[in-house]
């Protein structure tokens, strides 16, 4: 019987079956940030187990609130910082080098095809874009990951999603994943892995694939996975060139993780994106999706471009292309948070920061900040934000605030008009 990508990864990492249907796997990496890790660190210490399984396989970053905004967030950062020092965790990213975890870690080359990764963060599924199995977990699982480099999961069932057709001009990976979540529903992939296949995925850059996999969790999925291909090899090449004779050899090695032609899927779905339009969410759940064109007249108070979903350089390019030579609507506050220092630098080099600032954007340091309503752009009661992030739950970006999830191009067009607008409506 053929195997899916996740099944192949589990086969290569399984160390135990502690119970029927439960598999304990070896972890290649444990990622940590300052919101969920400190309580794990303190609990391990309280148990007399202040150890880490392998400091080289633990990667840590302060990203959610940085610089610290108050004593509590300062203390969270301090626990993580002290722990990283104590255990010699070399890949610890503090202020000046820090960025949103799911953008920063791939950029550093920490994710490889076939890897197993956990983090105490639901959007860990992003890293599946590289053909890895990466899952968000709770604190006890995180503790065991830190201590033993092991995690237990149910045997993975996979939904295969085939994305076909041709992506129209002005429609992006964000629109694709919103349309998929709209069809699956917020529980449509619960406890399952989603494999993304098809010509549209094959043509996507790594950044677009990360956007796609990032929101697998919004349909309940444990992980979104793309098959590693030449584009994956090219992205990773600077990090792996000493491991393989050439790119072709790397590709051949990565093919080990491709699903078997007779892999057994829990479900197989097909999406033709040829007729897709720019989308937006309209309610408080990410599956409440409709074309921007049909949203009616929705005034916004704030526009936010950033996050692990859409804060990468291609996202900034798409938004800047809409903004170039224009100014934002006077009633709108617009915020750009490049997801990593690398993105920020690249945007400076390409003159994009100039475009954003001339248009009237505030440019913040790389951080999660406003995405989870903690800093750098929290909404007031009754305010509306068009945002390139991934969650529109009530109060997500501030108590009583409303979030419309959109692509960076739509966010930029909306900043210009002050109303939910797709770039196409502005002649882009």
């Amino acid at each position, binding site marked *: 019987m053929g195997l899916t990508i996740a099944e192949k990864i589990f086969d290569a990492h399984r160390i*135990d079956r502690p119970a029927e249907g*439960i598999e304990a796997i070896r972890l290649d990496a444990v990622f940590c940030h300052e919101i969920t890790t400190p309580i794990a660190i303190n609990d391990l210490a309280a148990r007399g187990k202040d150890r880490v399984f392998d400091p080289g396989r633990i990667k840590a970053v302060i990203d959610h609130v940085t610089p610290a905004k108050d004593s509590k967030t300062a203390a969270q950062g301090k626990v993580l910082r002290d722990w990283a020092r104590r255990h010699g965790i070399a890949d610890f990213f503090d202020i000046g080098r820090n960025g949103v975890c799911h953008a920063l870690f791939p950029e550093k080359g920490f994710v490889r095809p076939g890897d197993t990764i956990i983090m105490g963060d639901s959007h860990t599924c992003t890293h599946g874009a590289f053909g890895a199995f990466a899952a968000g977990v709770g604190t006890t699982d995180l503790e065991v990951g830190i201590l033993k480099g092991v995690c237990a999961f149910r045997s993975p069932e996979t939904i295969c999603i085939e994305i076909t057709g041709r992506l129209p001009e002005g429609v992006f990976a964000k629109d694709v994943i919103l349309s998929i979540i709209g069809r699956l529903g917020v529980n449509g992939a619960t406890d399952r892995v989603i494999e993304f296949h098809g010509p549209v995925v094959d043509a996507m850059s790594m950044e677009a694939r990360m956007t796609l996999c990032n929101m697998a969790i919004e349909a309940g999925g444990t992980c979104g996975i793309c098959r590693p291909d030449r584009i994956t090899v090219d992205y990773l090449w600077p990090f792996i060139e000493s491991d393989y004779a050439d790119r072709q050899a790397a590709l051949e090695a990565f093919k080990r993780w491709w699903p078997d032609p007779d892999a057994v899927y829990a479900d197989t779905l097909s999406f033709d994106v040829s007729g897709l339009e720019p989308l937006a969410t309209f309610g408080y759940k990410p599956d409440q999706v409709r074309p921007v064109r049909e949203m009616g007249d929705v005034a916004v108070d704030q526009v936010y471009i950033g996050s692990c979903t859409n804060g990468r350089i291609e996202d900034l390019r798409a938004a800047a292309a809409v903004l170039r030579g224009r100014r934002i609507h006077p009633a709108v506050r617009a915020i750009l948070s490049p997801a990593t220092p690398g993105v920020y630098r690249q945007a400076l080099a390409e003159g994009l920061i100039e475009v954003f600032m001339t248009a009237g954007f505030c440019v913040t340091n790389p951080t999660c900040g406003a995405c989870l309503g903690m800093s750098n752009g929290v909404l007031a009661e009754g305010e509306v934000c068009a945002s390139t992030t991934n969650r529109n739950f009530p109060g997500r970006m501030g108590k009583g605030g409303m979030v419309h999830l959109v692509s960076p191009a739509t966010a930029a067009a909306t900043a210009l008009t002050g109303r939910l607008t797709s770039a196409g409506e502005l002649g882009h």
Partner: protein
Amino acid sequence: MRNFGGKVLFLDRDDINTDEIIPARYLTEMTKTALKPYLLEDLALEEFDAARDLAGVGAIVTRANFGCGSSREHAPWALEVNDIHLVIAESFARIFRQNMFNCGLMALTLPPEAIDRLFERFGAHSTHVAVDLQRMRLNFTADGLAEQVPFTLAPFDRALIEAGGWVEYADRRY
């Protein structure tokens, strides 16, 4: 292994959610012990007074779907740091139940009739429960009253509580 059982707190309601067990405003705490004063602070149950009713409690008996809502592990932690290691219910939310065993705590399911009977016979009394893991029985006692209730435990759940939770289990086994 922990001590399971003790004085019983009866919570006569379905669907007690994790927000009621530990409100979201305490999620910024960085240690489990810091959660101790806030257990069941927002429980919507008439005549329930956390400060009075939680004194000396070691076990909870409740109705269906206990621990629903947010998947936060702070809910079992808040029980744990209050020395409540055992919850007996008609049913549990899936993640809450797993979190309990991951923490080395027991979430035992009994049939609705058994739960009804416990509420009827013991609900109004000062009741004590002891767990007999060998004979797989719960021994309930109150002034002059006594009842034995059989229960079941999946092998993996038993292994987790015997180890004291997933951290201890994994640390020993892997």
